[in-house]
């Protein structure tokens, strides 16, 4: 395996986060360390179905059609991070799934920073053609000192296509992270996004922007653990552009130590017969933590059904006492309650990815401390 000389010590951290370096559990694998690709594996299952998984920089050279998908859902004018990435020819994944191809074995991608002072710039383009379906697991991690990750992801789901997108982040306390994600979901398309942050991070801000056509639906779930001095600002915006589209934004934030977590969430409806729901819950485990929940609903015409619920609280004293009387010490009881707090339904995600998510949620519960 060509994973670089220092990989072994760092391998452990990656596999804790669910990265499978051998690739056996995945139909394909793309691993990028700093700014070079250390693994690109495309199994027979993908090849025989003409699924394309390759380096985006190479894909732009090779296929003229790729250009028509660049910077369409994310404009470089939108912010300086997008612009910075757009000005270079950076690596990243191009994933293309042909019409009607449904692959249940997930694909993994991993972006990983191993050295300080790196600015890792990434551009991913994911295109699912009509009625296709795929699951993508992305893990991002850093084991370096001060470093920056700028990750652009453009998602295009054609009519009836379905993408299950699982992202697990495990940064280091000095990393600055600016993912920028945009998605365009055509008629009857389905986008399920699951995000979890497991480790301390200096500053992360991410706000996927999702546009839904007729009868399309999107669900974004974010589980955010704020440890030490982490600044976390993560949410999403769903635009219900056409009739009968449906969006749901669900966030759970656990703030401990001096961490600050903001959960922005916005659903905007432009036609009738749309449905949107925002559900944001925050749990504070320390005096010095900060949680902010910002749900916004906008309806530009009559006939949309938009709701939100938001709460911020602390662990229930009664629950802690009860669990301690059953033999769990304070930390164990806290972990149990936190595990319950983040036990959001995963019913919309395929069974095959749930074990990895369970592992991530268990890590969060174990690390959570009052």
């Amino acid at each position: 395996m060509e994973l670089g000389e220092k990989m072994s010590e760092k391998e452990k951290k990656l596999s804790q986060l669910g990265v499978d370096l051998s690739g056996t559990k995945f139909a394909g694998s793309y691993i990028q360390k700093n700014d070079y690709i250390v693994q690109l594996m495309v199994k027979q299952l993908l090849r025989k179905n003409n699924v394309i998984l390759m380096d985006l920089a190479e894909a732009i050279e090779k296929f003229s059609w790729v250009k028509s998908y660049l910077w369409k859902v994310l404009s470089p004018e939108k912010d300086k991070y997008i612009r910075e990435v757009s000005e270079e020819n950076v690596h990243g994944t191009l994933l293309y799934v042909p019409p009607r191809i449904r692959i249940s074995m997930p694909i993994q991608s991993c972006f990983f920073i191993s050295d300080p002072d790196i600015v890792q710039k990434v551009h991913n383009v994911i295109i699912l053609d009509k009625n296709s379906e795929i699951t993508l697991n992305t893990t991002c991690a850093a084991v370096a000192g001060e470093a920056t990750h700028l990750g652009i992801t453009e998602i295009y789901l054609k009519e009836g296509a379905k993408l299950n997108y699982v992202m697990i982040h495990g940064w280091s306390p000095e990393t600055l992270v600016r993912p920028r994600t945009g998605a365009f979901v055509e008629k009857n398309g389905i986008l399920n996004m699951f995000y979890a942050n497991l480790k301390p991070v200096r500053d992360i801000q991410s706000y996927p922007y999702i546009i839904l056509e007729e009868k399309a639906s999107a669900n974004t779930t974010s589980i955010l653990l704020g440890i030490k001095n982490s600044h976390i600002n993560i949410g999403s915006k769903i635009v219900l552009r056409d009739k009968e589209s449906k969006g749901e934004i669900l966030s759970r934030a656990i703030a401990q130590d001096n961490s600050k977590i903001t959960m922005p969430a916005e659903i905007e409806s432009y036609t009738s017969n749309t449905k949107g729901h925002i559900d944001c819950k925050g749990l504070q485990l320390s005096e010095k933590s900060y949680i902010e929940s910002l749900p916004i609903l906008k309806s530009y015409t009559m006939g949309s059904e938009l709701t939100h619920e938001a709460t911020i609280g602390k662990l229930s004293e009664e629950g802690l006492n009860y669990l301690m009387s059953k033999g769990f010490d304070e930390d164990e009881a806290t972990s149990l309650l936190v595990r319950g707090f983040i036990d959001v339904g995963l019913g919309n995600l395929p069974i095959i990815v749930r074990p990895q998510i369970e592992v991530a949620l268990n890590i969060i519960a174990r690390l959570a401390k009052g």
Partner: protein
Amino acid sequence: MLLKISDLTVAIEKKIILHKINLKINEGEIHVIFGPNGSGKSTLLKSIMSIPPYEIVSGKILLDNEDITYLKSYEKARKGIAIAYQTPPPIEIKTKYLLKKLQEKYKNDYKPEIIPKNLYERNIFVGFSGGESKKTELGLILLQKPRVALLDEPDSGVDVDGIKDVAKVINKLRDMGSAIMLVTHQGFITKYIDNIDKAYVLINGKIVFSGDFLTVYRKIITEGYREWS
């Protein structure tokens, strides 16, 4: 003696709730504590288990002659004392998940029959009926394989069939060698318990009677607690 409580005086928010309580119990024994509402039965079990809010003003709790008076509740649990709450609090944890964690902690893979299977996927005690809560709470105790089981009104609000199930578990615990302190309000459940070794009557935080179970029980069902008050 397995568990010995001597001269235990307990206060809540500076107010004395229990006065100089003396109790002792051995392996495989069942002791029943009777008493009217508010007499301090729950406070007694909770202070034995160190569940707040309570303050031990004086007295001692010995387990196998070891002074455990001021241990934390989880330390007491790990030493083999288990409590079934009168009203367990609703908690946002799936029943099956807590079961799994208790199995891990107490190293067994026992699945208590008394816990209705349809509750496994639900958050524990959230919206449970009275009977469902009692059965589930008692089932969890079985996983702990306790040396001492403190049962706080496991029969209240449970229907007749349910009471038989609860009694079955109590008999089973005793057969496993647990010492059982059973708090009951109206005592109907005792009909289904094979052999009760002793009974106490607690009134206004004082034990006003201790002795033969049947003598006390007959008196309570005919006369209530009036005579002792």
